[in-house]
């Protein structure tokens, strides 16, 4: 593959107290690719995603974005944590969409999208409003720009959250089980927006239990098990030739979906 590596993780470890959640994760995301993390709950997918955006601090190993370590710099052989301002600047280059939407309830849909544009990227209000309008249009919600989050359905809120993340023009977008909190009939509209984003060439790292979507959209699928990468490869490899009993068992739970969908 010719695309350059955008995100590289090497030996990433993370413990919460005595519990080691990540036991040395190696992973690459190339420019323009969609990489999906699958696995049972508790396997460390979400924790890894949160480390990439420094919502959690990893204990060991490296996470490099465009070759630059995330969250710290090397001083000789010692790691030094970056200042709050530098960490914020790094985060601005990585978008994140959450399971629970986390829209700002005191701001309208448009203001939610505009906040980062004006306060982080320093754009004028007029310019920010135009960009917000563009992205709210892309997710099919331009008519709702003046609505507050509580006036929107879960699916609409999540689409605003996607617009808020992508409007920042990030290098990489992280999706953390973004359809898990939605009613089943609202899942498709959010996955549709994500698929369109993937097709437009956005680099995405996705944690999801929507196996049909993962199989359909991903360039690369990573199966995580007990804090390690157990198998990774093209969707066809992972889904059709699972090489471990754990993966077979995990995929077996979605068997009904695949026999129906093909």
């Amino acid at each position, binding site marked *: 593959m010719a695309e350059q590596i955008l995100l590289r993780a090497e030996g990433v470890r993370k413990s919460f107290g005595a519990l080691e959640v990540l036991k040395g994760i190696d992973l690459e995301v190339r420019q323009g690719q969609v990489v999906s993390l699958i696995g049972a709950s508790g396997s460390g997918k979400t924790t890894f995603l949160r480390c990439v*955006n*420094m*919502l959690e601090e990893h204990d060991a190993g490296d996470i490099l974005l465009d070759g630059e370590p995330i969250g710290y710099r090397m001083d000789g052989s010692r790691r030094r944590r970056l200042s*709050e*301002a530098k960490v*914020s*600047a790094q*985060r*601005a*280059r*990585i*978008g*994140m969409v*959450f399971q*629970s939407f*986390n*829209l*700002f*309830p*005191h701001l309208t849909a448009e203001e939610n999208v505009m*906040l*980062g544009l004006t*306060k*982080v990227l320093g754009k004028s209000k007029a310019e920010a409003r135009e960009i917000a309008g563009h992205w709210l249009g892309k997710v099919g919600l331009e008519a709702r720009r003046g609505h*507050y989050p*509580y006036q929107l359905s879960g699916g609409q809120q999540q689409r605003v*959250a996607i617009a*808020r*993340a992508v409007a*920042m023009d990030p290098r990489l977008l992280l999706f953390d089980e973004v359809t898990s909190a939605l009613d089943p009939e609202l899942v498709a509209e959010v996955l549709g927006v994500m698929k369109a984003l993937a097709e437009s060439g956005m680099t995405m790292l996705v944690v999801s239990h929507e196996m049909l979507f993962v199989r359909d959209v991903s360039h690369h699928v990573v199966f995580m098990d007990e804090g390690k990468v157990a198998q990774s490869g093209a969707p066809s490899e992972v889904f059709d030739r699972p090489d471990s009993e754990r993966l077979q068992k995990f995929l077996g739970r979605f068997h009904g979906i695949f026999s129906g969908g093909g």
Partner: protein
Amino acid sequence: MGFTIPGTFTFELWQARFSLLRGISATLLASGLTIVAATVMGVLLGTILAYGWWPLRLLARLYVDILRGIPVLVLILFTYYGLALFGINVPAFWAGVIALSAFATAHVAENLRGAVQSVPAGQMEAAKAIGLRFPQRLRYVVLPQAIRRMLPPWVNTGLEIVKGTTLLSVIGVVELLLSTQQIVARNYMIIDFYLVAGLLYLIINFSIAQLGAALERRFSYLRY
């Protein structure tokens, strides 16, 4: 009417009008200053309680716990007479405002801490994810939501402050209660004039409560 007949209520009320007005203005001024000072300092101290570097947080916690545990009257007497012993002479009115503010600051701070911590953690995370720095996350995301939550207890603190200004009469500040006492000492119309004072306090506090209710309606879009 009885405006010209001494001993009637209307006559005595007319006679006392300037005393009452002076009392009301002292009460309003002391309350207003205290509410503003306690709000500003309370928000600062509350932010330290919620997010401060731990030694600062410890100091803030110590302050809040000590001031909440001491009767306001003791604070007022200490500020006025106690500081005088160290050669610091503060006029009675200002001693009272300082003591009341110090007390109310502790309440506002504790309310703000609770309000800030009741904002879901996901809000801070979403604010981090778009690259906002810490002061920006506070100003644009957390505090606007926290302030809605602390409005009811804040109004309560405001009402307590107005009632607390009566204690300033002890150190000789002629606020509404002391001016009423002085009027009663002249005309002996105890029931009438204490009723007047009570009614005036009620009007002041009812207005504050209405203002609070209006603010709550103003922020009613804040739902989850």
